[in-house]
């Protein structure tokens, strides 16, 4: 039992934070968002050079063999600076899926290119009406000789329009909400019949709606075993949740720091408003909330790589619940403490609040995950 970083982890964190402080300021970030491209080429290249894009891949495919704790450190730092680049979709979700479900040849043909920064991917999984149920997939993949034909509609495909390839979940068997019968396919975004509608998100990221109309892919596009994708999807989403928890912790720390700075300098009634006890106690509670969230983010990262499904999912749901609740509290109160300035677009605080709000909505909000914990209590009592 220890909470210490290794020397390498400490160095990684230090150099990444230094880079972001120097090269990824509020204005620079605004320019990237404004461009509509969804990411900055030079930044993405710099991440590749730092080894971040292949961090969690095996060493034989140009990775560094890292784990979810390493991802946590990266994402916390990204949370501090509100990095908008498609790290979650390309590296954590899709990189994780290829790493965990791919054949040796899929791994060796894809992962080195992600690690080098040349290749971006997005996970086309969610569907309208599924809410947060991971098995709710209506998109179909029909065998057609030695190929498949995909039909369906995917929603909330994070950075879908920026991706060179999509990993699409589709049903090769079973009914709409069954775990059995799910399969994953690697699909070039440029394939005929793939229609991608790009949207901005409130927090400066990009999302896409993806429609698949008779999209023909060859049999070797299948990622992992046919009909058996559900556990891989769960695992990839759990890794993404752990990563988002870490990002939220970073954003909460940054938001608390900037809010603290604000109430120390903003004067009303002739004194800094931080002299008022009602604001001091609010700030103390925001600090406590962020610390509790940090503890749970560490728990999530520690369990995210585990193949013990029940333990992993419980830890992830506990973490997402508490991080979601803390993020809401810290975010709303930070805006409140900024007063009128808090509801303007020019304050970094407002952008941190928006990101924290959206993180709560991604892959299950606090209520959804509390219900998972609650149902687990019921299962244990039986």
């Amino acid at each position, binding site marked *: *039992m220890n909470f210490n970083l290794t020397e390498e982890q400490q160095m990684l964190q230090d150099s990444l934070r230094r880079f972001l402080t120097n090269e990824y300021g509020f204005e620079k970030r605004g320019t990237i968002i404004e461009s509509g491209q969804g990411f900055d080429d030079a930044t993405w290249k710099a991440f590749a050079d730092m080894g971040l894009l292949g961090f969690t891949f095996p060493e034989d495919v140009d990775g560094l063999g890292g784990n979810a*704790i390493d991802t946590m450190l990266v994402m916390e730092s990204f949370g501090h600076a509100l990095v908008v680049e498609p790290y979650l979709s390309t590296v954590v979700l899709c990189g994780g899926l290829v790493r965990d479900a791919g054949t040796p040849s899929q791994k060796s043909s894809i992962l080195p290119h992600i690690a080098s920064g040349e290749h971006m991917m997005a996970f086309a999984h969610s569907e309208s009406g599924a809410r947060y149920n991971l098995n709710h997939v209506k998109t179909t993949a029909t065998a057609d000789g030695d190929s498949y034909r995909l039909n369906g509609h995917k929603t909330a495909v994070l950075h879908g329009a920026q991706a060179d390839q999509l990993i699409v979940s589709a049903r090769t068997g079973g009914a709409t909400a069954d775990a059995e019968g799910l399969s994953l396919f690697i699909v070039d975004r440029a394939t005929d019949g793939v229609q991608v509608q790009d949207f901005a998100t409130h927090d400066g990221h990009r999302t896409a709606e993806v429609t698949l109309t008779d999209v023909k892919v060859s049999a070797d596009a299948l990622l992992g075993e046919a009909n058996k994708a559900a556990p891989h999807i769960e695992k990839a989403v759990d890794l993404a949740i752990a990563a988002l928890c870490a990002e939220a912790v970073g954003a909460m720390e940054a938001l608390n720091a900037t809010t603290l700075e604000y*109430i120390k300098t903003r004067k009303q009634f002739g004194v800094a408003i*931080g002299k008022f006890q009602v604001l001091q106690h609010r700030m103390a509670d925001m600090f*406590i909330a962020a610390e509790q969230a940090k*503890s*749970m983010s560490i728990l999530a990262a520690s369990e995210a790589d585990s193949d013990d499904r029940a333990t992993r999912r419980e830890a992830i749901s*506990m973490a997402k619940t508490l991080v979601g609740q803390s993020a809401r509290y810290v975010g709303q109160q930070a805006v409140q403490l900024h007063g009128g300035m808090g509801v303007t677009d020019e304050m970094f605080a407002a952008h941190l609040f928006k990101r924290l709000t959206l993180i709560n909505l991604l892959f299950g909000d606090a209520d959804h995950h509390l219900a998972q914990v609650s149902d*687990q209590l019921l299962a244990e009592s039986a």
Partner: protein
Amino acid sequence: MDLNYTPEQEAFRAEVRQFLQTHLPDDIRDRVKGHLRPDKAMTQRWQKILFDQGWGASTWPKKHGGTGWSPIEQLIFEEECALAGAPRQLDFGLRMVAPVIMKFANDEQKARFLPGILSGEDWWCQGYSEPGAGSDLASLRTSARLDGDKYIVNGQKTWTTLGQHADWIFCLVRTGTEGKPQQGISFLLIDMNTPGIEVRPIIMLDGEHEINEVYFDNVEVPVENRVGEENQGWTYAKFLLGHERTGLANVGQWKALMKQLKKVAREEQDGARPLIENTRFRDRLAQLDVELKALDLTVLRVLTNEAGPGPQASILKIRGTEIGQALFELLMEATGQDAIAHIPDALELDYDGPRVGSADATPAAGDYFNMRKLSIFGGSNEIQRNIISQLVLGL
């Protein structure tokens, strides 16, 4: 970073568990698990059993007869004790005055006072709060006037927990009136059998006698009973409060309570179904489970911090007491209307008279009322927020 316990730590846990299985007397366990009335003899008996094992003081260094355990081992020990139904050891001696004696007292005082604390022979209580000095502790007025080789103490202390059993009281007294209120305070160890001391009970809202007022009327205290220097007592007092706070997270006890709450939720009926099948109730239970997990990990983070807990220990006090109170509240609500009957006799071990509902219901409301103290004592939770905002946030 590794959240797994090491094999050595797991072996240690097994050893503690094994010891508790063989050495914790059944009657003590039943009394603790049943939330029955605490008893001085029980606490002293259990302290003696731990003392004989060499485990009398889990938080002390070896040179004073403690176990020399690491913070993680201390937590494991505390958690296993709580889950097994062992009584909480008396904090006033072991965790509060003893660290002050070890750090600030002279060798004679250490030799004189520490052994009685360790064996449990000497029962200690705390003389901090006064009717006019609660959160504003430094405004205390109980006076100690030096007269030759003794102090003459006059004044009144209050909220003296379990003072009715005490052999000794550690007291903050005013020895000077110059400068700020914090300057001019001294730290005295006073024999409760000294003439001029009177202990009067305060009955708490659960009907129990747990706290007292202590009156001092020209009480003579030898000058060798002063710890450290005259007028430097505030430094020692703050040191003590820091130690008190780390103990207030109480994670082990809350885990045991959570276990009981889950059991009650399975056993209590909600119409045709067990209460655990009531989603609204179960979601509240799940929420507390999540918050308790976060507290558990935060305690581990704070206590393994090489720089020491520092003012961040206030987080543990706030969250620990909030979660504890919420657990007792939910336990009371789980037993529903069965909790409304007040049956003081049923808080004794040999009670076999009538009761309402299950044995879990009998103490539930009384405990809920009693536990409102948690967010008030040891520096109210509002004072803890002041500490965080001043010492952590620099406001």
